């Protein structure tokens, strides 16, 4: 039984690693931090397991790119995951490039999905698919994320969903 259990476990791990690590990884000597990042990526961001947020992020987590008034801590991540799940239930992230340096992890990702749920709280879904790039920097402390900086091609995503840039009428 022990062998079977360990086989199942290795298979699950290998499968998890395969989804999370498609791409270039430069994290030699920083494997523990990389594993924490990949765990968060699979369980929280792709897996959308809200009960795993506290496992990977610190209570005083500080996002650097949110609108003024956005909460910090676990609530910031919870809102992000919940809102994304509503608008884009099938969204999937892939790591193209992961770099570790000191206490920081940099990840360049491909974001794929379809807008199957209401957008921005109430607008009907466009039904359109998107594929764009995102980049994040995470700072880890004692195995948990304490800071995050991010930037993504959200404009590319909006354009793919059919939105057009138009200046406001005077």
């Amino acid at each position, binding site marked *: 039984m022990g062998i079977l259990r360990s086989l199942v476990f290795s298979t699950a791990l290998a499968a998890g690693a395969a989804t999370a690590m498609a791409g270039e990884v*430069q994290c030699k000597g920083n494997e523990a931090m990389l594993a924490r990042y990949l765990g968060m990526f699979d369980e929280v961001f792709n897996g959308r397991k809200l009960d795993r947020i506290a496992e990977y992020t610190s209570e005083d987590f500080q996002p*650097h*790119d949110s609108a003024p008034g956005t909460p910090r801590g676990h609530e910031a991540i919870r809102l992000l995951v919940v809102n994304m799940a509503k608008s884009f239930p099938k969204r999937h992230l892939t790591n*193209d*490039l992961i*770099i*570790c*340096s*000191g206490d*920081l992890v*940099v990840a*360049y990702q*491909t974001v794929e999905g379809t807008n199957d749920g209401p*957008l*921005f709280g109430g*607008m009907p879904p466009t039904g359109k698919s998107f*594929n*764009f*790039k*995102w*980049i*994040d*920097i995470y700072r880890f402390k004692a195995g948990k994320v304490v800071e995050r*900086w*991010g*930037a*993504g*091609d*959200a*404009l*590319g*995503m*909006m*354009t*793919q969903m*059919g*939105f*057009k*840039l*138009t*200046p*406001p009428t005077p």
Partner: protein
Amino acid sequence: MSMLRSIIFSAVFAAVSSAALALETHCKGNEKNLETYLKMDEVLFEQRDAERVLEFYAPEFISHNTDAGGAGQQKRTAESMKAMWVSSKKNQPNRKLHNDLIICADDLVMVRVTVTGTQTGPMMGLPATGKKYSSTAIDVFRFKDGKVVERWGNNDSISTLSQLGLLLPFAQAEAAKK
């Protein structure tokens, strides 16, 4: 003694508060790439001296930037980048970049920057508004023999356009789409 302590405390505090605004770098052992990046930042990104592109970019490099719905990974020539810097200098002459965080790892340099400016000329095909903006970007550069051979990056153009009032509220955008 307490005065001395308070002087030391003030000195430490002053150092900490100025550090909060300063650049954070993680490039120990990678000083050469850091130096190359900082020079490129000044000459190409800040001054936008497009004639000097081959000093910093390999004649052909791989770009992973999608830049508003692009194709992702593609080969580009240094020559093809010139037009972008020429147009940026012409249309947004007072655009400034501030490095917030620079991380080096092997042949890569990663940078988080704050971009500020006043939109005095057209941007992404939209007219000048004269409004100020401040947004952020993250870039990754791979250097080989002191030149960029690969790059990844994104900037928060949604935020920039929103601050300029060039992005319609989404409900209006939805209506305009039809």
